[in-house]
């Protein structure tokens, strides 16, 4: 094969690699068009607001999760951290009469601490992140139950409802928070030293250590950030419901991983963009919304949404396969 052709092939490969997210963006737009053509209610402002409010939560957790996926790890305790922080905030406000805003800030800090605990355990005891966070989600979930005895905490001050239920113009406030989180995370990942180190660690932890990167410190930091983002999502959800419940965030671990992967973030680390997680979250939310709008039988909803998610995830692995084949061709020649 001529050099030029090889060069062209390389260009295709890098385009394909970078375009996982772009491709999903195109698919997302197609889905929106299909949905609006097939259902007159899809573009209804109330439907869109409900949809965006939903995706704000999956998106926010997904953006956090994608940071961990970038270093080749994951956190399955995000949902339980979210509900625990929501409950702690609720207890401070309702049972102990703390200032509501102060309670929210304390809950956020506690989320950071829970994340840091995850990170410390995983790095210092050299545990696998998946197994360790399965254990930790049991711990956080258990504390939830001890504190609430399974009952919801009601009587949350109405002054904070705006964070969950309010809109700025037509845009739901949780979504604005998600965008702020995304901008901060993108700045971290794309513009700072730490961001570069995250990608380096995801590419090769050994190489990163040999380069003198403080690998464990950065890992703990990311777990802390993810804990903080989880707490933020948790308290926003409390504000949305008007009560603290231990059931908050039940599906978040799986949905956050799925949305990251759909958005082109590699499970093995080093490849992807956190913005992809938001696109992935939008895909998942629209699927769920369409299922409701099309009147799919209630008992079938979960199966259908599962199938569509699997199909969506396959897009990125299929493009990986194409990439590998191209690479092999270049090597052979």
């Amino acid at each position: 094969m001529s050099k030029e052709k090889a060069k062209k092939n390389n260009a295709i490969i890098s385009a394909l690699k970078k375009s996982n997210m772009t491709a999903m963006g195109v698919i997302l737009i197609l889905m929106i068009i299909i949905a609006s053509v097939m259902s007159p209610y899809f573009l209804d402002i109330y439907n869109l607001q409900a949809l965006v409010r939903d995706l704000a939560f999956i998106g926010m957790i997904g953006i956090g999760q994608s940071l961990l996926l970038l270093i080749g790890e994951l956190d399955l305790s995000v949902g339980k951290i979210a509900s625990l922080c929501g409950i702690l905030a609720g207890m401070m406000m309702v049972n102990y009469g703390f200032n509501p805003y102060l309670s929210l800030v304390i809950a956020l800090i506690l989320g950071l601490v829970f994340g840091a605990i995850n990170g410390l355990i995983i790095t210092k005891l050299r545990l696998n992140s998946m197994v360790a966070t399965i254990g930790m989600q049991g711990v956080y979930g258990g504390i939830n139950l001890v504190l609430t005895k399974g009952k919801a905490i009601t009587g949350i001050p109405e002054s904070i409802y705006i964070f969950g239920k309010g809109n700025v113009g037509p845009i739901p406030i949780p979504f604005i928070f998600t965008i702020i989180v995304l901008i901060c995370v993108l700045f971290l990942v794309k513009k700072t030293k730490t961001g570069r180190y995250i990608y380096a660690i995801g590419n090769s932890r050994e190489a990163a250590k040999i380069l003198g990167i403080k690998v464990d410190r950065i890992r703990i930091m990311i777990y802390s950030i993810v804990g903080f983002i989880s707490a933020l999502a948790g308290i926003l959800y409390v504000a949305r419901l008007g009560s603290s419940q231990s059931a908050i965030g039940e599906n978040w671990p799986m949905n956050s991983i799925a949305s990251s992967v759909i958005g082109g973030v590699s499970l093995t680390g080093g490849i992807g963009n956190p913005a992809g997680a938001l696109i992935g979250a939008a895909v998942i939310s629209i699927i769920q919304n369409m299922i409701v709008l099309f009147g799919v039988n209630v008992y079938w909803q979960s199966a259908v949404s599962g199938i569509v998610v699997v199909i969506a995830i396959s897009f990125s692995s299929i493009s990986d396969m194409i990439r590998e084949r191209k690479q092999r061709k270049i090597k052979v020649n």
Partner: protein
Amino acid sequence: MKVLEAHDITKLFPGVVALDSVDVAFEAGRIHCIIGENGAGKSTLIKCLTGVYEPEKGEVLIDGQNALKNKALFDKVAYVPQEIDLFGYMSVAENLFLPYEKSGFKGLVNQKVLEERAVPLLERFRIPVKPDELVRDISVSSQQLLQIARATVHEDYEVLMLDEPTTSLTTEDTQILFEIIREIQADNKAVIFISHKLEEIFQLGSELTVFRNGKKVAYSEIKDIDIPWVISQMTGRKVIQDQRYCSAKVSDDVLLEVEHLTGERFTDISFHLKKGEILGFSGLVGAGRSELMQAIFGYLPVYSGKVKLDGEEWKLGDTNYSVKHGFIYLPEERKKQGILPELSIRENISISVLEKLQSGIGISRKKESELAQEVIDTYDVKTPDSDKAIQFLSGGNQQKVIIGRSMCCEPKVLVFDEPTKGIDVGTKAEIYRLMKELAEEKNIGIILISSEMEEVKKCSNRIIALYEGKKAGEYDAEADKEAILSAIIGVNTKENQLKSE
């Protein structure tokens, strides 16, 4: 009777002739030893004789039949690799008989029967373990013997090929192994014994073939030869000194002092490195060279000992400290530990100096690209642009990027661990020239770890030989290749140590 023959086999790799028209034959009832330096072509030969590689030219005959045409014949060659490749979490008996079909177990496997059948084998090989013990729980010696026992389980083997079987055996177990090998020889099987240890060859072998640079250079009955003859055959009588790349500007200032350093794979090592000097570390694979350097670098633990750089106490166990203070390690496992494969050349270069590339907010793309271009130009990296993912560069160009990146950190000491591994001959010379330049012009102290004797001799001002984690000698650049070679294979170790003291 000749059971395994290779006729005129040639094996080519890009840029290298790994085997050059080799003829060799192995007879039943004989122990045929093979010796040669690293890179002499031994492992390529093994892979051709076991059917892993297909040679470009020539044929392999097993029992007189062409094995390249009938691959099933390769089953008659039982091969025991140098590294232990047993299943640690399975029992001794299971390990012996896997894959079950080949050992005559059809259908369901009964653990009791497996264990019963394992007992006589374990007795024969004098392995003091129970058949139901997990392999990870038995000693390394036993594991090594078990590997050999496993190779002989298949009744129809004719040739037993042992690659450095004694590296992890105690002296006692080595003697047991030799007895067993002699029994196998008495069974009229052909034994191929590959070893670096000359005493063992003279104790055990019937005949010897010496390889050098991909060629068979000598063959003899063991009874007709002695150790000096073998060493002279291995090194080649005329020493090729055409091109030297050692530093011409070695300063008198001592840069690095290492005193009585002990870690997992090395014991009581002391040496010093001067500014502008290239210090070669020679030794066999597993002699502890990489481990020693990685320990000074902070990647592996140090048990005891002291290190000083520029007269100041060196902090051990922190790679970040080492990089910040000018001690940089360029790993042998370039793909796994050197490059960040998915990132671009630009990002691979800038990663260790990001704080210098800041502008208003965050990292400046412009400064980063300029730095990358500078490295690409200075070190002559062949690439269309710096945005290409580094994994698509050739090994040599990746190495140049890594060297360029390391130079951005203003190092005082650079450790090159097998810098030319998997790199073609032309680029090798470029890397040598680079090392020389860095030593002479930037006054950097360079440590070169290499398994290729030629490379160490060509590039080093001084050479330290390691053998089994201990310093086996120290030589200047003009020292005899024979002396260094003897030291790294453990001949006359004591004498050499006295000399170095």
